[in-house]
């Protein structure tokens, strides 16, 4: 059993990280009061931008990892810019946020493949991926070393750092307090002199930036190519946000759960102790658990109170 866990841990972590960063972005958006179900689309935008930039940069500077980092950075920027569509619709125009998010998903899926075909001739963009490394010294620690510090990607540490900074920002800074107040009692926030729409714009933009990064991280670690989807990761990130009860550490736990559950399902056939379980049960397991979690948490949901409601200054 232990060897099994050891074997799958690196893969589970690789799967967890894009999920984590995307869900973390969504946390900012929902805490500010805007539902963002366009995560999938924003990730696709990030994956596309990342792949396109990396493809071109690798031609200019072959064999260098720098190309990948430039790709990740630009993917973040494009995710942020694209999320402005959602912010404008849901904040300025009081549009139904779920419809707007759906539109974002559809636009991203269609337009990226459209552009990919125009630019490269096919809907797929192949890139070389980031190289994993063993963290010096730490990987020699017994138990934890082999679990957490072998075959890691630099992006993993970047995302974990962002998680820490985000948790600090949300709970220990005036900015975090203001952002959260806009998702709970926007009218009180406004009365206290906070610009609700500004905070919500920031929330959605952080969500877009993180999702863009998440999509790009997905293709430079596991995917290796852009093909128009991120395989439902965006929706899973949304589930992680709810499963994690809109809290940074909760989200970390939820995404780790999804990471391990999905990896177990993926490798079950080659591991004798798991091969006895029909694969369909392992595959639907995370989704069924999410449904059960939704039922369990339904009485004590920690959802921001004003999430999904357009802010109308005149309505109290």
């Amino acid at each position: 059993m232990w060897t099994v866990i050891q074997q799958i841990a690196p893969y589970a972590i690789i799967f967890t990280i894009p999920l984590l960063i995307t869900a973390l972005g969504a946390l900012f958006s929902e805490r500010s009061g805007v539902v963002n179900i366009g995560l999938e689309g924003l990730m696709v935008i990030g994956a596309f931008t990342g792949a396109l930039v990396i493809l071109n940069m690798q031609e200019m500077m072959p064999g260098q990892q720098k190309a990948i980092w430039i790709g990740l950075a630009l993917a973040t920027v494009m995710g942020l810019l694209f999320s402005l569509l959602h912010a404008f619709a849901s904040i300025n125009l009081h549009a139904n946020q779920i419809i707007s998010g759906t539109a974002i998903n559809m636009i991203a899926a269609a337009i990226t493949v459209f552009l990919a075909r125009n630019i490269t001739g096919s809907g797929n963009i192949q890139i070389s991926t980031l190289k994993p490394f063993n963290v010096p010294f730490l990987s020699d620690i017994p138990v934890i070393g082999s679990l957490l510090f072998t075959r890691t990607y630099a992006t993993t540490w970047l995302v974990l750092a962002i998680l820490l900074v985000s948790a600090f920002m949300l709970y220990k800074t005036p900015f975090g307090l203001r952002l959260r107040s806009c998702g709970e009692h926007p009218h009180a926030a406004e009365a206290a002199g906070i610009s609700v729409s500004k905070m919500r714009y920031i929330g959605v933009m952080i969500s877009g930036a993180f999702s863009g990064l998440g999509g790009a991280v997905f293709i430079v670690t596991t995917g290796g190519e852009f093909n128009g989807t991120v395989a439902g990761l965006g929706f899973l990130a949304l589930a992680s946000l709810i499963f994690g009860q809109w809290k940074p550490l909760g989200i970390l736990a939820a995404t780790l759960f999804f990471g391990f559950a999905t990896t177990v399902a993926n490798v079950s056939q080659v591991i004798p102790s798991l091969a006895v379980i029909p694969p369909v049960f392992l595959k639907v397991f995370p989704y069924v658990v999410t449904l059960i979690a939704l039922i369990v948490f339904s009485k004590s949901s920690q959802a921001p109170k004003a999430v999904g409601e357009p802010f109308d200054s005149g309505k109290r």
Partner: protein
Amino acid sequence: MRNGIISLLAVLFGLIAGAILMAVTGNNPVEGYKYLFEGGLKNLSRIGNTLATATPLIFTGLSVAFAFRTGLFNIGAAGQMLFGGFCAVAVGLTFDMSRPLLLVMMVVAGFIGGALWAFIPGLLKAKFNVHEVVSTIMMNWIAYWTVYYAVPAYFKGEFLETESKKLPEAASLRTPILTEMFDGSYINLGLFIAAIAVIIFSFIINKTTLGFELKAVGFNRDSAEYAGIAVNRSIVTSMVIAGGLAGLGGVAFYAGNATSIQIGILPTQGFDGIAVALLGANTGIGVLLAAIFFGLLYSGRGFMNAMTEIPPEIADSIIAIIIYFAATSILIDRMIRYFINKKKNKKQPAIVQTTTEKKEEV
């Protein structure tokens, strides 16, 4: 009336955006649109294919619209359609009986399969107040994996692992009469079922107590409860009917347009149903027209792609942009209001003008 204008303007803006996209990528938009519409309308066979492409969209559009009338967001039409279609195909491949009976059984199985898939989110919403957007997304993936493993296990195709056996002719919604009438197109009986569904949809929503109660819950859940309407039961009923409609979409798609069920794909028609419902302003006739329009874009894009360099995804892009404009219809609404006021300002004297403006604001 105003909804119709908003939808038409959203379509117009979507088409303009599509033209810009074509131009930016170095293609000729006029040529693109010419081939796109020719591809969908040029001859009887193409018209037949346009209508066939529209058929599943009518069902999923009705599904989303029906739930929406009760204030529910059915984002799980894809999963309901997949599972309903799977049930119908399973029936079609398992039983050997006279054609009319078999087809009726398949339709019933499809409806029940879809209804079951929406019943769970409906129940969770009614009993535990679980938001239906998240639960229907989860149900989509559960359907995806269930079909992914059930098809190869029980109905494996002769040549391909990734699809089921071909349905026998007796279990297909295609009929020789229709196929001949439309020059070998894959138009099928699904279209007639869809037309009946549109009529029943409009009847239930507009003429029955059930429809009234569902709409009342959609307008204001609390006041509906106060008025003695069983809100929770309405929510479950609404989801079951919505899921059943999406399931019928699966029947029309897998047993009519196609002849087998593929694994590894969530049908995109499920998500397009959201677009269709939105553009059709959640009315029966609106859904029908919007679905035919999208069917035209989808069936024409292949021809356009063959004749020009424009990738077929332009159709999806146009539809997605239309949805964005429909979602932000308040922008269009403001524009219409602006032009109406401008016109009135010219015609009427100053005092009357202020009163009409006040009326507009209310």
